[in-house]
């Protein structure tokens, strides 16, 4: 295969993603939802959460850490809340269902929340909160993760995951406000990129096994950890740490899932990583007349975007806007797949007898 970046239409990427999931043994209805959500990440430039996850999912399935045909069951169903069990499956179908339940309940009663247990990776958290916004509701999503590689403030070892928070608010004139952020300073992928390019790490991105700031990116792969948002004590990393713990409380403590720092987390029960998610939906019309919430949010977005920029070529944006811009661009160019990933996927297709559409 060539060494060039190749561009594919979103349809092809989705078809390839679905083909893999099917051949790994995921049932058709789950495949459809999962491939749609994964490809949405690729469309929006969240390249860490799309087709690039396929090799990982294969490993987890082969090792019986996830149950791709896990049965989703409703453990509790109350007027404003529900608890779902994902049966050890990947988190996409159950998260999709959970947010839909939250939306339906919040429409009737003003707000709702749905907890999910016995789940696994669910992709980009912001997909589910955008579902709420497209129905005129405010959405929150939180999830636990598989590895404790983020250090608390003052700590020398990793205890929390990247524990993301997503929040989306509906608008009328602008695209929805859409925040989707890890509570660590940067994603580990950014550290990997610095290592590949031989560049030093900015102080505050990563720490070594003694909790000291790490500058040499190549050392990161010898057991170092990421910092909580803020980076250093002086720069307020106790706040990022507090947010990371908050996400753990909502995603794990409230759903009855495994805590990310507990021994053998993710590997204790065959067929399940025991990860939890939590979703909230709130209906603005229970507080103000229809459209008023959206108008205020549009005004905020306009006023923020009108901020005079530090440099004219880098305008001030709002959360979700960089992804919206990439989405527009990729609608024209297609989705770029790097040669390393393409080769990996090609080999995996051969190994699993999956049709390969990216040649």
């Amino acid at each position, binding site marked *: 295969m060539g060494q060039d970046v190749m561009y594919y239409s979103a349809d092809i990427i989705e078809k390839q993603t679905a083909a893999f999931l099917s051949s790994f043994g995921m049932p058709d209805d789950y495949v459809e939802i999962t491939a749609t959500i994964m490809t949405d990440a690729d469309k929006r430039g969240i390249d860490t959460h799309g087709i690039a996850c396929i090799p990982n999912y294969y490993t987890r399935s082969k090792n019986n850490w996830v149950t791709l045909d896990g049965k989703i069951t409703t453990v*509790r169903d*109350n*007027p*404003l*809340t529900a*608890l779902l069990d994902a049966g050890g499956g990947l988190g996409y179908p159950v998260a999709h269902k959970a947010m839909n339940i939250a939306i339906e309940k919040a429409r009737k*009663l003003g*707000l709702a*929340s749905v907890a999910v247990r016995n789940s696994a990776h669910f992709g980009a958290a912001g997909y589910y909160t955008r579902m709420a916004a497209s129905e005129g509701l*405010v959405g929150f999503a939180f999830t636990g993760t598989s590895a404790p590689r983020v250090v608390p*403030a*003052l*700590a*020398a*070892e990793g*205890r929390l995951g990247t524990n993301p928070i997503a929040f989306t*608010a509906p608008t009328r004139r602008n695209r929805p*406000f859409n925040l989707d*952020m890890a509570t660590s*300073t*940067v994603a580990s992928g950014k550290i990997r990129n610095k290592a590949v390019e031989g560049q030093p790490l900015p102080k*505050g991105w990563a720490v070594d096994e003694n909790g000291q700031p790490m500058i040499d990116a190549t050392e990161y792969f010898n057991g170092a950890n990421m910092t909580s*948002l*803020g*980076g250093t004590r*002086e*720069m307020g990393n*106790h*706040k990022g*740490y*507090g*947010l990371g*713990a*908050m996400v753990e*409380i909502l995603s*794990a*403590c*409230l759903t*009855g899932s495994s*805590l990310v*720092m507990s021994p053998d987390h993710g590997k204790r029960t065959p067929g399940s990583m025991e990860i939890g998610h939590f979703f*909230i939906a*709130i209906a*603005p019309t*229970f*507080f*103000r007349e229809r459209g008023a*919430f959206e108008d*205020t949010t549009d*005004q*905020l977005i306009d006023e*923020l975007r009108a*901020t*005079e*920029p*530090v*440099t004219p070529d*880098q305008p001030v944006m*709002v*959360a979700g806007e960089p992804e919206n811009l990439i989405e527009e661009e990729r609608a024209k160019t297609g989705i770029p797949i790097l040669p390393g990933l393409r080769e990996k996927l090609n080999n995996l297709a051969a190994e699993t007898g999956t049709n390969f559409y990216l040649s």
Partner: protein
Amino acid sequence: MTFRVDENDVMWIPKEVVREQIANILSAWGMRSEHVKTTSTVMVDADSCGIDTHGISMIPPYEDRRKRNVITVDADIKVMKETATTALIDAGGGLGYVPSILATEMCINKAKEHGMAAVTVKESAHFGATGYYTRMMADAGLIGIATTNGSGPRTAPTHGKDGKLSTNPIAFAAPTKKNNPFSLDMATTTVAAGKIRNKWNEGQKLPLGWASDADGNPSDDPEVYISRGGTQTPLGGTPEGGSHKGYGLAAMVEILSASFCGASLDSSPNHGNNKPGSMEIGHFFLAIDPTQFLEEGDFENNVDELIDYLHATKPVNPDQPVMVAGEPENKIRMERENTGIPIPPGLRGQIKEIARQSNAAFVFE
């Protein structure tokens, strides 16, 4: 009564006396007595746990706002809209403490009955430390979330020159059995404005990333923030350090606090000064009952287990153990039970002068 004065001329005063001093002044300003009781109780709680920026030290700014007629001291509070699970309160331009206690109590009652509740407050002003309200929810066995927007838009968006958001705090508390509740109460800026002021007072430089100059470039000179139109940074500090995340959180807090109730936006021209008698600030409160999802007590056990794991984390420095949110404040609260609350001489002088002008009894001597 005489109080201990230490070598730095700081006077250590029992909590009840500090509360009495706050109450004397609020009463003299014309606040009705039940509002005085609530407001002084919440304010002195901040002093009790070391949040010295949100207790009696707020009396001078409140005096200024009262004189400028941007707050209504004797405000009428009305519930404008109410359902089984939600409510919207109009604070009538008053300080935010009383309507926020009402909002929190409504959240608690509604969530206990239905599993969840959200209440918003508009036409409000400063409500003190956000974490007070979420701790009330945790004490009632609920998960609490609270946010407020602010009055001073001095936080610049990532890549922006001008302040468009305030320190926009978010608070979150969760109940426990064995440990103290988990209680996060954080501004979405890198540091509180008070910390920049402290460096300026001491003639020290700022760590790069706390503040930017009027052109939006990181500056280590506190003067640029104090008097030269500089700005505070969102949590993360610089684009490289992830300040777009702190900026995103601050905007989220603005949406929760203003879009849900129709408060004035921090980013709007003349925010806080557009309406006589009201700063038009908004708050948001949310409560969740964990027994909707788990058996009674299981959630608390899970949070205790998490806190224990976090406490057991290997520290960088053995003398500085890893803590959880709310713990530093709990430590100070225990200390101050014995020592009283430290009131420095400058603040004492300001309070004395305000008491004299308002015809309120001064009890710090």
